[in-house]
């Protein structure tokens, strides 16, 4: 007698079956999976064009199973603008770190948001430059030690960490701006929902959508993966509050 077998967990179609180069315990893998699940759930994979940043996720195009372009450092929103304007039927998303998006690419992100480009921006905030070896990022917390803030970030000298979701939510054009975190299974489920909302709104042609995901960098932070998640939950979430900063009126609890 055969027992009926049901698959309850499998790789999303929008991800390739390939080992990643990320460090053990790095949340980039989780974030990739959440994006891929949103594309799968909404049936968007075959229309999707991703834009990879310069940063640890520079090779994201090797892991996603959809069309991709690889941008210069910080320019992903400009590439995304060109792709979406050239091919309005595509579903365009960027996947960017904090150095990429909030430092060298600040002009590109603000103006893509302000033009209301119909794209989705996935912003991985790990408060550090992972790829280049743990230097200070524009989102590095006050007092946080990095290889270029060896005495801890000093706001007198270099200013305060930038809150991107809040900043972008002051603009008129963006339709959805949220900050979520990847530190616990509950938080990951909420992040998954946020990405689903963002891609759905793009598919509906609503406008610019932005999902910031508080992440960790065990290697750059000099912690074990578990310590890093704890530190993120305690320190990152204290300075970077979670929430939906902007939502279309029609959405539940949304304000314009």
């Amino acid at each position, binding site marked *: 007698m055969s027992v009926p077998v049901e698959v309850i967990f499998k790789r999303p179609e929008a991800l390739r079956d390939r080992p990643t180069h990320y460090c053990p315990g790095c949340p980039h893998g989780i974030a990739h999976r959440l994006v891929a699940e949103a594309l799968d759930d909404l049936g968007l*994979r*075959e*229309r*999707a*064009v991703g*834009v*990879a940043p310069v940063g640890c996720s*520079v*090779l994201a*195009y090797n892991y*996603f*199973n*959809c*069309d*991709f*372009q*690889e*941008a*210069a450092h910080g*320019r992903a929103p*400009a*590439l*995304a*603008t*060109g*792709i*979406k*304007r*050239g*091919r309005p*039927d*595509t*579903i365009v998303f960027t996947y960017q770190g904090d150095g990429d998006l909030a430092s060298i690419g600040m*002009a*590109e992100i*603000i*103006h893509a948001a302000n*033009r209301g480009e119909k794209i989705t921006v996935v912003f991985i905030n790990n408060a550090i430059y992972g790829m280049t070896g743990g230097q200070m990022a524009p989102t590095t917390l006050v007092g946080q030690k990095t290889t270029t803030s060896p005495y801890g970030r000093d706001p007198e000298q270099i200013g305060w960490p930038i809150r991107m979701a809040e900043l972008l939510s002051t603009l008129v054009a963006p339709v959805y701006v949220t900050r979520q975190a990847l530190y616990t299974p509950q938080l990951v489920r909420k992040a998954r929902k946020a990405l689903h909302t963002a891609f759905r709104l793009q598919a509906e042609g609503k406008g610019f959508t932005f999902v910031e995901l508080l992440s960790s960098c065990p290697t750059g932070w000099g912690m074990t993966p578990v310590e890093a998640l704890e530190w993120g939950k305690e320190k990152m979430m204290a300075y970077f509050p979670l929430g939906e900063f902007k939502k279309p009126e029609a959405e539940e609890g949304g304000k314009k």
Partner: protein
Amino acid sequence: MTRVLMKGAEAVGEAAIKAGCRHFFGYPITPQNEIPEYMSRRLPQVGGTYVQGESEVASINMLFGCAGAGVRVMTSSSSPGISLMQEGISYIAGAELPVVVINMVRGGPGLGGIQPAQSDYFQATRGGGHGDYYTMVLAPSTVQEAVELVMDAFDLADKYRNPVLVLGDGIIGQMMEPVEFPEREPALVDKPWATTGCKGREPNIVKSLLLDPYELEEHNRKLQQKYERMKREDVRVETVDLDGAEVVLCAYGTTSRVCRTAMERLREKGVKVGLVRPITLFPFPEKTIQSLDPKKVKFILTVEMSLGQMVQDVKLYTEGRIPVHFFGRTGGVVPTPQEVVREVLKRLGKEVEK
């Protein structure tokens, strides 16, 4: 085909539209604002899109995205803006994307001035940004030629999957001349590599990153083969009266017009003078320079609106067989025919009138 009187900049814009370009991204800068202004007016009328980027850095990267999606796309700017675009042009060359970039060159360095210049020759013909690459460079000398070269630029960009620069200046852009637009359908080609969504095929990836040094070397060699092919198949040059010439002027764009006037006066004075006018600055018409006869040509005089940039190529390809001299004005000053005449007569050891 009808002839219409048109300003150079607007003719450039219309030529792009005739070539099937429906997307323009750019940032204002004098002396080329009439191009984005024209595109912002015309593109919506033909179902296209004009986006004013927040900077030249953003604009060129919008071109990357759009060209990567398989769509004909153009930007225009002037020298300081083109410097900012070098990042994107390097990435575009690396990713092998077809784009058209117009540079209405102005005086530099720095903010320089807004008057016509040819001082971006080095930047244009040596790649311009970082890495082992070249862009194709076309240099029109009339509004009519600007129209034809802009239309050709789109075809050449597609042929080579490479950026094509059109190098003009404020004079070409501001000049009103009669033009005829060639009646031809845009030669749109299939772009199976473009990121259009992967329905029914494996995903396409558009990128310039090759971390393996052997792979990158192989890629650079492949790019090199394209440049060699450009040299074989797409060099363009106009020559005037080279037969029996004792003096050969070499100039492109606006200065070639100055030289033509100078040549008339020199002929009146009995000087046998010819002209080499490169139309493609890269690939440079090396064979034309190499074929000049050292027994007949006393010297070549390169005339530029710079302090001597193209002259280096002319010297390179004469390989020391013929003396090469230089005359130029810079900073936005246009040389006069009289100045060119005097320079030639002086070099010939002839009486120079005051």
